[in-house]
């Protein structure tokens, strides 16, 4: 298993390299002047010439790429051109937003999608099944953008002044501050900058406020997370529900399920232990694959709900041709994707002991 993991990690290196080559080149060959994209269309030629020269953007692309790889090999993701800040620092601020959002979305999607799929499969062709599948089809085809605005409209505006009101944007209410755990626990003195790893952990507001007992902050953060994560979860939820249903249908028609029933096992034991466990493999696979959809959905969700996550930053960086951010974020997203898929593959062994990962 360890051998397998190492092999997988090594075999993912070419993938990463490919991702890098493609993003690096694409970002530079798309039409439009990076100087004007970053500095505005009134930037004079003089300013632009100096700017391009100073940032090394006039060098041949292979030369720029070689320089970038050299930095990357030392673990340096570079510095944003627009913000003059290290990419890692920007990631420390932006990635937690997306991770929280992504986890909440995936959690909601699985929590609702799997049971719906199971029920649909068990009540095959019943009205419940029909309703679920129609709902799933609508969910799959619902634009995240529209859905997000509708949710915000209903919960922030129509339900204004009711207990069901939910905030339409941001991570926390203006004025509410999530004090980092390392400050609460006195790990880092006031005014001193904490190590980036600690900042990264503390920027997961829900986790941070939970472990430090800042319940008001926790409540506020969760309230802010509800609408975006619902918007984000809709499509994966529908996909998971459909996959669960078809996988369960397949399994429930197997001989061993009939045998289990014939043995007189309780229906719940039949469904959960015999049918669901065997149906789980494709479901887990599809959940892993949803991560890609979550990232693309995150761009829109973060935009509508004014969340400064990786998705929106990446989108803005592409618009502004801030190459170091585009590259850095893409690498991190690619690594995240590779890790999740690795976890999915490793989980096969636990779910089905017949699978040997060697």
């Amino acid at each position: 298993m360890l051998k397998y993991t190492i092999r997988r990690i090594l075999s993912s290196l070419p993938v990463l390299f490919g991702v890098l080559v493609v993003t690096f080149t694409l970002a530079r060959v798309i039409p439009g002047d990076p100087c004007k994209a970053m500095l505005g269309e009134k930037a004079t030629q003089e300013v632009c010439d100096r700017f391009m020269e100073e940032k090394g953007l006039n060098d041949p692309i292979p030369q720029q790429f070689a320089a970038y790889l050299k930095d990357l090999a030392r673990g340096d993701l570079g510095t944003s051109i627009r913000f003059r800040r290290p990419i890692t620092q920007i990631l420390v601020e932006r990635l937690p937003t997306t991770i929280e959002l992504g986890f909440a979305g995936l959690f909601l999607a699985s929590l609702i999608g799997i049971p719906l799929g199971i029920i649909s499969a068990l009540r095959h062709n019943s009205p419940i099944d029909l309703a679920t599948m129609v709902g799933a089809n609508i969910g799959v085809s619902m634009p995240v953008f529209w859905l997000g605005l509708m949710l915000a409209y209903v919960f922030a505006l129509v339900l204004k002044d009711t207990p069901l009101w939910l905030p339409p944007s941001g991570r926390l209410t203006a004025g509410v501050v999530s004090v980092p755990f390392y400050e609460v626990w006195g790990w880092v003195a006031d005014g001193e900058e904490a190590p980036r790893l600690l900042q990264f952990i503390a920027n997961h507001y829900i986790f941070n406020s939970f472990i430090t007992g800042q319940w008001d902050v926790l409540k506020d953060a969760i309230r802010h997370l509800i609408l975006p994560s619902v918007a984000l979860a809709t499509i994966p939820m529908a996909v998971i529900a459909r996959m669960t249903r078809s996988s369960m249908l397949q399994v429930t028609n197997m001989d061993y399920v009939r045998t289990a029933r014939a043995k007189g096992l309780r229906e719940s034991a039949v469904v959960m232990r015999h049918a669901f466990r065997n149906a789980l493999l494709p479901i887990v696979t599809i959940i892993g694959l949803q991560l890609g959809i979550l990232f693309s959905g995150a761009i829109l969700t973060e935009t509508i709900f004014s969340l400064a996550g990786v998705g929106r930053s990446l989108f803005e960086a592409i618009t502004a041709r801030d190459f170091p951010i585009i590259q850095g974020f893409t690498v991190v997203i690619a690594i995240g994707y590779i890790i999740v898929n690795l976890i999915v593959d490793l989980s096969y062994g636990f779910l089905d002991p017949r699978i040997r990962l060697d």
Partner: protein
Amino acid sequence: MQKHRILILFSVLAAIMLVAAACGGGAAPTEAPAPTQPPAEPTKAPEPTPTPEPAGIGVVRVGTNAEYPPFEYVDDNGDIVGFDIDLMNAIAEAAGFEVEYINTRWDGIFVALASGEFDAVISAATITDERKQTVDFSDPYFNAGQSLAVKKDSGIAGIEDLAGKRVGVQLGTTGDIWATENLPDTEVVRYDEITLAFQALANGDVDAVINDAPTSADIIKANPEWGVTIVGEPFTEELYGIAVRKDAPEILAAINEGLAAVKASGQYDEIFNKWFGIPEAEAPAEGAMPIGESEENGLLVIRAECKNNKVKEIKAVDEMTVQVTMCKPDPAFLAKIAFTPFYIQPREWIEETGGTGKLLEQPVGTGPYMIDSWNRGDSIVFKRFDDYWGEPAKTATLVFRWATEGAARLLELQAGTADYITKLSPDDYETVKNDPNLQFLPVPNPNIMYLAMTNTFEPWNDLRVRKAMAMGIDRQRIIDNFYPDGSEVASHFTPCSIPNGCVGEPWYDFNLEEANRLLDEAGLPRGDDGIRFKTKIFYRDVFRVYLPEPGLVAVEIQTQLKENLGIDAEVVVMESGEFIAESTAGNLDGLYMLGWGADYLHVTNFLDFHFSRSNPQFGEPFPEIYEVLEKASTIADPEEAAPLYEQANNAIRELVPMVPIAHGAPADAARADVENAKAAVLGPPDLWTFVPGDRDTLIYLKAAEPISLYCMDETDGESLDACKMVTEGLYKYNADGEAVPTLATKCEANEDATVWTCYLREGVKFHDGSTLDANDVVRSWDAGLNAISPYHVGNTGAFEYPSYLFDSLMNAE
């Protein structure tokens, strides 16, 4: 006396005064340019001053033409001053008579003297035989002969060393004539202006310059960095004398007596030095003013050579006075420094941060709010600054947040999670107007959308065709159908909210008959299909305040052209960057729709940018327009410049480089209970005056997060808005868009708007507790404007606004 030198001398004088003021003591005296010496021997032992005979003379009426600085001119107080005047006063005192000056025209000054209108004339008058026939002259008091200027290390010691060299002169002057006649082995290089000859000398293009001694002295003194000096005495004689009417020998005698006494007593040298010499204490080391930064007596000075840059020197004159000297006149200086990038931070803070790093996140200003925290991606929290010098902010806490989508911003306003939102979508104007919980706030934004054509392509080279465009498009219909409420048909290129923007004749009325007649006349008759000719309409599909619906407006113009004028236009949409590049380079052969929004509120930001002699975007630039604009751009006073802008606007109307279509009207919105809510002409509203109902936090929602909070190096509205809460400038725009004094009590320009002097407000505190002084201003501007400053780092390092507003950076490569 050569009248054509007056202008040069006049401009040089301003520079002399500046340099005189600029060099605060300390440096050693050096080989100061030795222009002229009194021709008479000054070493005579002082004779016992003869007892004055007041009875004989009394008051002497002296005529002078006070337009020839530094010899004689009228100063800011309306007094006649100058070298001649000081000398005459000294002579009168020595000889015991009184003087009454009569300022008169130069033409006929000797006739008037001869006819007895006055008794004497002192007016830099050259002694000539011709004049001697009608008037008497005193002993000469000044030699304004030709002198030789060279680089200090040139080895040229006099005119005898000039064989085989290149000599610069001003075309048609005495120097030109003399050099041509007397220096057969020397190449004479003629320049239109003598300063150009000196620049050429400084650059090594010529080896020497021959010119009048006083003018040369002035130029050398004003430009010590050139390392130029005068060698030897003047080698020609052009002696100035005091003319006296022939029938008053007693006056002539008294003047000669007095002159001798003044020379003998050393008073002459004092006066000479006052007007032409470099006082010892102020002589800079090696004769060159250091380029870049220097600090004298704790006062900062930043200097640059004049290349493309406008700003030549930024100087703390004293603790509370800042002076900016320009290479070219800049009447828009106040409008520019009122713009957020030029706002002031403490010198110490800029130096401590090295011009980047923390400076990008924690601006320290004098403004009504100070930064409390910037929670990246989420919000910026501002707290009221209690020691604010003006009226403190009404709300204790101000929060900036952002949402990209117009719909999301409106939703937040309606939901009550924001108090004020910007950039309302035109689709939402009605919603906001009809909602009793909200206020609709039109923004008087100065912008223009125009339909341009490049006159180097047919048929746009024909004025009649351009005029037909000017009259043949129903602009009102475009506004009515595709622009939000509050937008206007453009009567001029520049909006009326900008001073002098819409002086002159308004644009043509919609007149189809005349437009079609013009096209017929231009030899473009309708074909069988009713079509006169084919063309294209180029645009980019990008939302702008001046053009919210580009695609629809393009099609509307296409329809109008076909229906009204028989012009068949194809609509072509281009990628934004490519469109800007091609249209502004004058490469588009059809019509194109483009626009402009104000950077700073001055008419030059609209007219000079678009109609200058170097802008090819409408084809061949029109001298009828740019020459007037160039003249106007040397006048600081808007009222004085008004007739010129009227002329320029009328020329634009007459020549039709483009057709101004619309001034778009953006809008903001606020919750109904926000008191004093009002949008500003440029930049964010005065949020510190707002009262958000009974809440203690005001939430301001914009479209994006600021990039950094060091606005010298930013151009995005979000950064500038945030900076404006925290920092302040010497001037700022009031709600009507006028530049009004803020950290300065006033700024004054010299005559031609090349030197601006600003007096700072006393007792203004920064957020860090320090007090505002002139060094803070100099360092703040140095960091942005001076390319070789160690603090010129910033965020992207582009420093676009300083570079763009002042033509180029100081000391740029």
